[in-house]
């Protein structure tokens, strides 16, 4: 039964084995180009060299949200079609999404220290990203608590979809709460409109981080499939022994 389910993942494994090296190379090139552009980008006239944190921070923050979208689509696949790969995709994306969210928070905090004079402010954006991080950890904890992978996948899928409905509401209410408590004084009106000399490195870095996510996601999916095979083998071995 479980072995039949693995039929499709086998094709996935052979396909990704061919694609992954190229993806890894493309990621490395994108990072090399992106970092060179960041290196040569001009410093901000107000923020100095610290503006370069932005090139790491913003792509991470974008990915933090994009990964939840990937998980939501995969969750629909899990619940509606019970596609074994969708389940694997959702599970493999969770730690990556949590890592990107954590990096967005960390770099934002390090950027905030010289800019705002404090590591943390209860700003609307920071707060909703923090809640997003907590929800990633919740999904992670849930899928690590159930033994059976397919049951764990479906439970995590329901939580992911509930989160997908709730995240805009949380974002909206945190924005509302923030304007109520303090006028938007911390975030300056995003400075001057972004200059091409800043925008180009930013977009290249975003592409690099996106490629990094795709590469790591496919690799993590392969690992997860192999892990499930090992588990099935163990179970069969234990069954045969008893």
């Amino acid at each position: 039964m479980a072995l039949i389910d693995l039929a499709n993942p086998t094709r996935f494994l052979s396909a990704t084995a061919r694609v992954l090296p190229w993806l890894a190379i493309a990621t490395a090139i994108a990072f090399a180009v992106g970092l060179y552009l960041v290196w040569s980008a001009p410093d901000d006239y107000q923020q100095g060299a610290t503006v370069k944190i932005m090139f790491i921070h913003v792509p991470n923050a974008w990915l933090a949200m994009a990964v939840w979208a990937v998980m939501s689509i995969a969750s629909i696949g899990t619940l509606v079609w019970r596609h074994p790969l969708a389940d694997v995709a959702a599970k493999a994306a969770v730690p990556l999404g949590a890592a990107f969210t954590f990096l967005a928070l960390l770099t934002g905090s390090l950027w905030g220290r010289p800019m705002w004079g404090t590591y943390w402010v209860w700003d609307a954006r920071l707060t909703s990203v923090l809640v997003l991080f907590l929800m990633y950890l919740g999904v992670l904890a849930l899928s690590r608590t159930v033994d059976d992978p397919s049951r764990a996948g479906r439970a995590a899928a329901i939580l992911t979809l509930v989160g997908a409905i709730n995240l805009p509401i949380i974002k909206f209410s945190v924005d509302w709460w923030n304007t109520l408590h303090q006028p938007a004084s911390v975030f300056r009106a995003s400075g001057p409109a972004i200059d091409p000399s800043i925008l180009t490195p930013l977009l290249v870095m975003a592409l690099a981080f996106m490629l990094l996510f795709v590469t790591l996601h496919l690799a993590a999916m392969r690992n997860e499939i192999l892990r499930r095979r090992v588990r099935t083998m163990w179970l069969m071995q234990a069954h045969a022994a008893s």
Partner: protein
Amino acid sequence: MTAFLALLQRDTRLAIRIGGGALMGVLFFLIVVTLVPFAVGPDLAQLRRIGPAILWVGALLASLLTLDRLLAADHEDGSLDLLLMGTTPLELVVLTKAAAHWITSCLPLVIATPLLGLFLNLEPLAIGAVALTLLAGTPALTCIGLIGAALSVALRRGGLLLPLLVLPLTVPVLIFGVAASNAAIAGPTSFGAPFMILCALSLGSLVLGPFAAAAALRHGLE
């Protein structure tokens, strides 16, 4: 309808009788509210200022306390399997169980609010506002908690996991509950807008909660 009433009656009775733990929530609420002045100091002016926030956080935590038994007790003795196999739609079943939980665990919190409000030196108007927002907001807490309870029902450490899953989702309810209470007390915004949004959150989770919980039960217990 008969099934709804029968299940509601059964769950309410089970919760009120010995071992049901319905009043644990109120006791916990009382203890939390008693602890806060020890932490922030006995300054009455300050307590009055943060009173609505204390009451809301206390009620939120107290409503979590009994959530893990919402479905787990029925799962352990097998009656949840009977309900799953029965002809009554599972969505209605979990909605009924949520209603029974709200009546036995959250309604007592609302009733206890005026007394605890006196401890925190709140004005009668403020007490009324907090009690009203709790009345409007706790259905949302129960229905969001219902999803968490359904997801964690068959897990060995489900009770520990439940708050982790539920609490981030309750952020909007907390924000608008406290905001509406504060608006009624001090302004500057009107009481109506946040209160309406709070009611909308309750109605929305009343729809979302049973469907998500029923889906979680179907997938989790097969």
